[in-house]
Every structure is written in C-alpha cells, then in structure tokens.
C-alpha cells in the first residue's frame, strides 16, 4: 500500500516566509532557512518552496537564498516562482533542488516546459496549475500568483503541461488556500483522470484524513501550507508535521495512491 507523499509548502515573499489566504493577505511567518531546517529535522517526505510574488513583480528567483535553503534539505525539494530561463533552472537544480515548478512563464512562453524537460528530464519539471475563477465565475487556470485568468480549464492546462514534458502537476485550489476547509476533491479527480503523471493536491489541507481523501480522488501526493505553520499565542509561530506513524496509522487500509483502478474494478468493489 502506497501512502501519498506529504509535501509542506514554504511560501516566500520578498525573502520572508509567509502564509496566505486565497493567495492574498500574506502574514509573516519567519526566516525561510529556519523553517526549512525544522521541516528537515522532522523528516518530511518532500518540501516545496514557492516564491509567491516573483512572477507578478517580474523578478527572477533569488538564487543565493535558494542555495542556502537547498543546503538545509536532505530530503527532496522543489522550487517555483519566477523561473523564466533554462539557466535559472540549471542553477537551481545544481544547487540541490530535485525539481523546478513552472506556471506563468510556460503560459507566456509556450516552449519553456518543453525546453526544461528536454534538458533536465521530465522528472525535474513540475507544471503548476493554480485554479481560480475568471470574471464570469468560470473555473480557470491562472497565472501571476492568481491575478490573471487564462482561458484554459484546469484539466486543459495540466494536459498541455504534461504534453510538453512535465513529469508532475502541482494542482492548487486558490479558493481553498489557507482556509483549512479540505481539498477540492472533485477538481483533483478531474485533473488526475486527465493525465498519466503524478498529481500533487494543494489548497485546503487540514490533516491526514484530507490526505486519504485526496489519494482516493487520484492524487499521488498531498501538499499543504497553513496546516503545518500556524500562529500560537503572542505571535509565536509553530511548525508541525505529522509523523510517518501518524500517517500510516490513519491511512492503513486505504488503496494505493499511484494506481487508478479501472472503472469496472471500482464498480465491482464498491
């Protein structure tokens, strides 16, 4: 039985780690280096580090900070935010990151994911799909930290990214970001059915029960932000991550996350 990977997200704005709600109202959480170190000590499965303002402000990734962060990680880490060139990706991967996460630049320059996958391999490139609503209220993939809607549905965006060579999809529900209300399971199921690569669910996670639900919907991995980082009394920030034993105990008996049952089998077993 495969337990989905659990991936805490560390959001960075102007060099500081922060939390957001629906991609807005960033509140300061601390120095990213300390936070990454704590997650590393807690031995989480993977870490995703996301610069949430780089693309919107037209800034490149802070490569020096990333090198310091990578030095703290003895588990896999991915980075996303403001990556527009192969050279940036090469520097980031060489400094110790497993994967680069791409959204805005690949929508504006249609060949970027293909270029990166060709050079570094599909397993090094993650297509991020940030799901919001356009002015008509329709669900759309967005760019620039959720401030601009594209014309693509989430599934279409995910398919396009994978067709270009992305090895994974990071699927974030902007509406559920920071609200601790559970994942958007219907969205996860739709996108997971549309692609043959692992899909990472993000946005709304509260705890291990949500991971089980996301895995049943087809997610191969579960990301979270607010559930790992919260403010205690007197503005103290607490970092928490469920231990492997918590995950195993809660998810025992749940079916494999990496494999989708054919409809006939699922119907027969239900």
């Amino acid at each position, binding site marked *: 039985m*495969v337990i989905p*990977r659990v991936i805490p997200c560390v959001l960075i704005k102007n060099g500081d780690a922060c939390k957001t709600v629906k991609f807005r109202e960033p509140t300061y959480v601390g120095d990213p280096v300390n936070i990454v170190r704590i997650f590393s000590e807690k*031995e989480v*499965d993977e870490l995703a580090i996301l610069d949430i303002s780089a693309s919107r402000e037209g800034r490149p990734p802070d490569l020096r900070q990333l*090198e310091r962060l*990578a*030095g703290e*990680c*003895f*588990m*896999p880490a991915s980075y996303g935010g403001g990556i527009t060139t192969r050279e940036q990706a090469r520097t980031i*991967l*060489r*400094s*110790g990151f*497993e*994967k680069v996460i791409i959204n805005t630049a690949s929508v504006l320059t249609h060949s970027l994911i293909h270029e990166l996958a*060709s*050079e*570094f*391999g*599909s*397993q*090094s490139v993650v297509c991020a799909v940030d799901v919001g609503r356009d002015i008509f209220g329709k669900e759309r993939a967005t760019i620039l930290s959720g401030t601009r809607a594209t014309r693509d549905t989430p599934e279409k965006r995910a398919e396009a990214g994978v067709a270009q060579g992305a*090895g*994974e999809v990071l699927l974030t529900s902007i509406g559920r970001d920071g609200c601790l209300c559970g994942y958007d399971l219907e969205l996860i199921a739709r996108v997971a059915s549309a692609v*043959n*690569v*692992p899909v990472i669910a993000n946005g709304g996670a509260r705890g291990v029960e949500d991971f089980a639900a996301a895995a049943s919907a087809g997610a*191969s*991995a579960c990301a979270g932000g607010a559930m790992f980082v919260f403010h205690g009394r007197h503005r103290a920030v607490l970092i928490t991550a469920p231990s492997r034993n918590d995950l195993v105990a809660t998810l025992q008996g749940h079916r494999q996350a*990496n*494999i*989708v*049952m*054919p409809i006939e*089998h699922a119907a027969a077993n239900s």
Partner: protein
Amino acid sequence: MIAVVDYGMGNIASLVNMFRRLTVPTVVAATPKAMVGASGLVIPGVGAFDAGIREVHTRGFADAIKGAVYDDRIPVLGICLGMQLLLEGSEEGVSSGLGIVPGVARRFPAQDRTAGRLRVPHVGWAELTPVAGGSERSDLAAALLPREGDARRFYFVHSYYADCANAEHVLATAEHGVSFAAAIGTKNVIGTQFHPEKSLGAGMALLARFAGVCLERESSRGLSW
C-alpha cells in the same frame, strides 16, 4: 578521498553536503585528472540517458570510470542516471552506455500488474526488498544494503529502471506497480536507482557505509571483489 564525478548532470550539491555532514573527505571531479588517487567513486545523475552518456564521453570520463572499475578496482557507486549509464543502453535513447553491468534501462509500463493505470515518473519513497543472497555477492553489496532493523525507505524519481541481463546482478527490488531493480551491482560496482543523498537518515547511513568500505579497502587492500 571520495571523488564525485561531475559531468554536468545531477545533484552534486546534495551529495557533497551529505558527505560533509559525515566528515568524509570528498572532491568534486570536473575532469578525469581530479579523480586520480580517489579511494572511491560516486557517479550521480539526473536527466536523459543520451545527454548523460554524451557528457561523460565529452569530458573524458568514460575511460576514467572504466579504469577505476577494472584497473584501480576501487568501489564505484552509480546513482539514478549514474547507475543507468553503467548499463549497455536505455530505451530512453539510442546511445550505448558504459557496458559495465549487462542489461538495459526500460521505461515503466503504462499499466501495473492489475491492469490499472500506472503513473510515470515514479516519484516518492519506496521500501527496499533485498534479494535473497544478494548481500553475499560482494563485500560492497553486503556493506551497503540495509540490514535487519535498518531503515529501508528511500526516495525515487525516475521513469526508467534497470533490466539486468544477469539476475545475479539485482541486489534489491522495490515496487511501483511492478517490481523493479532498486539496487544492482557486481564486484566493486554498485548502483542505486534511488537517491541516497535525498533519503534522509537511510541515505546518509548508506553513504556512510560506502565511505567506510572505501576507507577499509584503501588501508587493508584485503577485500574480495
């Protein structure tokens, strides 16, 4: 001194960081000359097979690696793509590998053994199952593979796996819809499909054991391959 082969692909920084934490003297060898005198070799690698073997040849590492394996007979550890380059070839490309371990790299099938969809690449942690008798095949295998009670979860991120021509070269397996070779090796060469440099404590323990074997061999010269 352990040499990490730098042919431009792979997570050199994480390897060096881990060896540094273990206080193992390491040199990043960007040229074959920098490898001279090493007591052990690590070949990292992430990316496409053809690009990898091309870089290895262009930078003069093909002969240097073979010299380390067959002439100097120092312990050699290939990681992920670094392991696959030791094979004869890969379904991923058209180039020949180094041919040190017979076999080819194959792509995961689209379906698992129950005909369900198998998502590729395989990304995540998986448990290693040592092959019966695997640890008897060489001192290197015995030293590196996790023993009873050791942590055996390691991190994998790959679309291709090693299909060894000789079953005796498969030292451990793991599962991703199908069973595949997670660790392969013969004599003084060992390859891991997983990334010890990204596998926390279990990975660090494996690299520590590798460094230990290199040191032991250097001082005693009595290990059998």
